[in-house]
């Protein structure tokens, strides 16, 4: 029998509670085999399945994604338009805020699903969804404000290289921090549930 992409199904299952993973993945597989594959063919059916999984992943993580994106864009906006005199304090505030967000999202994911794999997956998914949103926000700001004064402020805060590379390289730290949060979340779930 035809199978949807296994990795996509694994992502779906790992983000859900065990009960939802069972029933929701079953519903999607049934729809994939019953109506999507016969009418659209293999490639488009696989793309449909991946799209559905991304939709579920977005619904599970959008709050964290928007918070993290806002933090990234806000950090750059602060550096560009109100350059701090002491970058050490600004850096500490934004770094610890980002750490807290990933730890918290990993914690809630593990508390909800009782699975450390869920916290790892949530951290990765949040960083992957947040990267294009953050980059889009930064590009928009850059398209509107690129006068010499702003460009000088950008250069003093680490330069465009840092601005564009930071959101992309958050994946690994996000996984580690979400895993740390997941340990707390799983412990909390076993104590309070």
């Amino acid at each position: 029998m035809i199978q949807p992409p296994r990795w996509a199904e694994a992502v779906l299952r790992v983000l859900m509670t065990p009960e939802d993973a069972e029933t929701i993945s079953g519903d999607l597989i049934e729809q994939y085999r019953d109506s999507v594959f016969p009418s659209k063919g293999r490639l488009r059916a696989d793309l449909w399945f991946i799209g559905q999984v991304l939709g579920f992943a977005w619904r599970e993580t959008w709050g964290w994604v928007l918070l993290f994106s806002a933090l990234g864009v806000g950090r750059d906006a602060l550096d560009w338009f109100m350059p701090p005199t002491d970058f050490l304090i600004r850096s500490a505030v934004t770094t610890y805020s980002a750490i807290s967000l990933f730890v918290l999202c990993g914690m809630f994911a593990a508390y909800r699903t009782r699975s450390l794999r869920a916290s790892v997956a949530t951290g990765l998914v949040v960083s992957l969804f947040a990267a294009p949103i953050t980059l889009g926000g930064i590009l928009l700001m850059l398209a509107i404000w690129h006068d010499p004064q702003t460009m000088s402020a950008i250069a003093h805060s680490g330069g465009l290289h840092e601005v564009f590379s930071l959101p992309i390289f958050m994946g690994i730290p996000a996984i580690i921090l979400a895993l740390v949060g997941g340990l707390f979340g799983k412990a909390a779930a076993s104590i309070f549930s």
Partner: protein
Amino acid sequence: MADVLGAFEQAVLLAIVRLRDEAYGRAVLKEVQTRLEREVAAGAVHATLARLEQKNLIASRLGPGTTIRNGRARRFYRLQPSGVRALNDSRAAVDTLWHGLKWPLKGHV
């Protein structure tokens, strides 16, 4: 008056009414798509089902899977009395809004 239901919530609840004992996730999605005559994301239906269950308008139970879904369990839904009330109230609210008007509206009224 019970909770005011959105149009999509009504579509999902009415699908459960129509499907009776066969109201599980995939069947509800299919019924909603047929009635609304458009593609609907599975995630949208599942999120709505979860929300309606949280509001105690529907209840669910797990049932056996089938071969086509790799034996994965199905979650069957049924309306709670509060769900029936909410649907009746929503219909009554629409009827009240339309009272005295001839449907379909034609041109400028």
